């Protein structure tokens, strides 16, 4: 299947008074039509910057240093702002983390929802209103006729996130980017919203690029996963490969630092020591070397390339080199 979106060797930097912060440092990936690809990583790993770059919503201090983003024979990094506007919303849509601040407080739900419908689908006012009501029912909002006249402050957090999803769906996009869509919500509401996103994706057949730090959510909804660390992809594979045949020590560390519900309180959590590197002075070799329990001499000298373990599973780690000791393969990660 031809990919819907392809990102090639993308580098994004921010300019600050301290110097250049290299937020994204050469990533490659592709999103196929209808699939769910999750990007996981901790704060500052570049996952949100990647999403903003695809949407061309980067702040003015940021710059795409090199690389291309292909969407249907076009390079999104080269498009003019006017052309980009016709893609945003109608081809690629985005929902944001914080439903409190991403809706305009001075506009009614109806105005915000109909804006996209009239602009992208060129509907007249009556049809736009009808479609807006349909969209609100689709995302599970009762009494849509009344809700259209309400303002964001009259809705709860979960409701606002549903409205955000409705707005994103208005242009019937082929790709939906969801940047931490449930982080600001309570756990029971989070379950509702993830369930909603899954069912809508099935109904509309769109691809979902899900950005999150929660490996539990990834396990539940994603088809494929990319783990980012310090602006690079360290591991990339299907959900089963990543959770059951974990290769990268960082992925393994993330999985182990979560308490399992059946874990006894006598065992301590396996924390990852240290903290992520400063991207003002990004490490030249493997970015994880200072926190890695299996670091070798080469890890501090030469950056590991992404190498394939299977046709769908890639990892950037020297442990995968044929000359590396294979002791680590015995660690917990696969089926014990």
């Amino acid at each position, binding site marked *: 299947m031809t990919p819907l979106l392809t990102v090639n060797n993308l580098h994004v930097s921010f300019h600050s008074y301290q110097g250049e912060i290299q937020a994204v440092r050469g990533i490659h990936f592709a999103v196929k039509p209808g699939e769910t690809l999750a990007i996981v990583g*901790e*704060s500052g790993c570049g996952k949100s910057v990647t999403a903003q770059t695809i949407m061309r919503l980067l702040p003015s201090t940021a710059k795409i240093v090199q690389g291309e983003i292909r969407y249907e024979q076009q390079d999104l990094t080269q498009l003019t702002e006017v052309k980009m506007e016709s893609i945003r919303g109608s081809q690629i849509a985005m929902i944001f983390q914080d439903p409190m601040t991403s809706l305009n407080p001075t506009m009614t739900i109806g105005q915000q929802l109909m804006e996209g419908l009239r602009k992208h689908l060129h509907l007249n006012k009556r049809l736009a209103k009808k479609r807006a009501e349909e969209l609100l029912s689709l995302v599970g909002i009762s009494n849509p006729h009344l809700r259209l006249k309400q303002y964001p402050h009259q809705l*709860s957090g*979960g*409701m606002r996130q549903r409205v955000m999803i409705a707005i994103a769906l208005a242009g019937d996009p082929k790709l939906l980017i969801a940047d931490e869509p449930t982080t600001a919500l*309570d*756990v*029971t*509401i*989070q*379950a*509702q919203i*993830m*369930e909603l996103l899954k069912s809508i994706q099935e109904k509309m057949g769109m691809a979902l690029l899900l950005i999150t*730090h*929660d*490996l*539990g*959510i*990834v*396990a*539940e909804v994603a088809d494929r996963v990319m783990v980012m660390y310090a602006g690079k992809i360290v591991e990339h594979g299907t*959900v*089963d490969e990543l*959770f*059951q045949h974990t290769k990268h020590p960082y992925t393994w*560390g*993330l*999985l182990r*630092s*979560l*308490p*399992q*519900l059946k*874990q006894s*309180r006598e065992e*301590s*959590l*396996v*924390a*990852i*020591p240290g*903290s992520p590197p400063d991207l003002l002075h990004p490490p030249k070799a493997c970015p994880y070397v200072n926190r890695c329990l299996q670091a070798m001499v080469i890890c501090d000298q030469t950056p590991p390339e992404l190498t394939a373990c299977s046709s769908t599973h890639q990892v950037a780690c020297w442990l995968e080199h044929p000359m590396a000791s294979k002791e680590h393969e015995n660690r917990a990660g696969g089926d014990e």
Partner: protein
Amino acid sequence: MANQSILTVNQVSKVFSLSRKKQLQAVKELSFSIRKGETFGLVGESGCGKSTIGRLILGLYTPTSGTIRYRDQDIHQLKGKKQQHFRQKVQMVFQDPYASLNPRMTVMDIVAEGMEIHQLASGKQKREMVYQRLEQVGLQSDHASRFPHEFSGGQRQRIGIARALAVEPEFIVADEPISALDVSIQAQVVNLLRKLQQEQDLTYLFIAHDLSMVKYISDRVGVMYLGRLVELAASDELYRRPLHPYTQALLSSIPVPDPRQARQPKRVLLSGEVPNPIDPPSGCPFRTRCPHAMKICAEVDPTEIEDTPNHWVACHLYT
């Protein structure tokens, strides 16, 4: 010794007046006790009153009714020296490590401030104690001359913990101490809290919304919903045999980081959202979202009953 309670919360209610007519009942007739040396976890969603109870215990709020007793003394009646002693022995670790440290003070000043107020040490001895505390929480003594902005989130949370420890407390209220931190750093801070508990015989009230972490760190867990304690049990018991429909729903809402398990349908998905606490439903607060709601639930507020020894639940299904 093990069963000696250090803190007793008895029928405590807290009502906030929002305007002349509107009142918000944040906490309603809450009772529980915390034993010396244990970790008591409180979980619930935003607005359930879990932070309010933390602040009531610290004496930052005065209860509308009911009493909170620390070592058999009503903490809201304490005056003078006794009050100062209480404030030394009960400390807090805050949620947001960015907002809870004064950006204009050095780490030395932040950690030493409590020692000065309680006149525990001064001069060279005080500095030595600060260094000791910093090392205890996994920082270095030369960090003392730096300012909070020079540290990462996890390190700042360590500074916050060092500040709480500086005055030799017995009881620490930790209000969402890890929810602002990244996953890999959360485990570091939780391991640190447990190490300190063993070393210094501390008692914790651990307030959080992350159930898997609360289960892991706590000996006993209370589940709150709309200002009420709906279930209370030992943490293993609560997770093995949740009784209240809300606890069951909360547990099944946790996303499991295991794709094989995640694909099995198991969700008790709750419909609807938490009702507005200004205008709570009659009877049981959970009945509007409860899959088992009966007629009686709308009429009578369920009282807590002890279903099996030490497992308390407030639900009409068990009466």
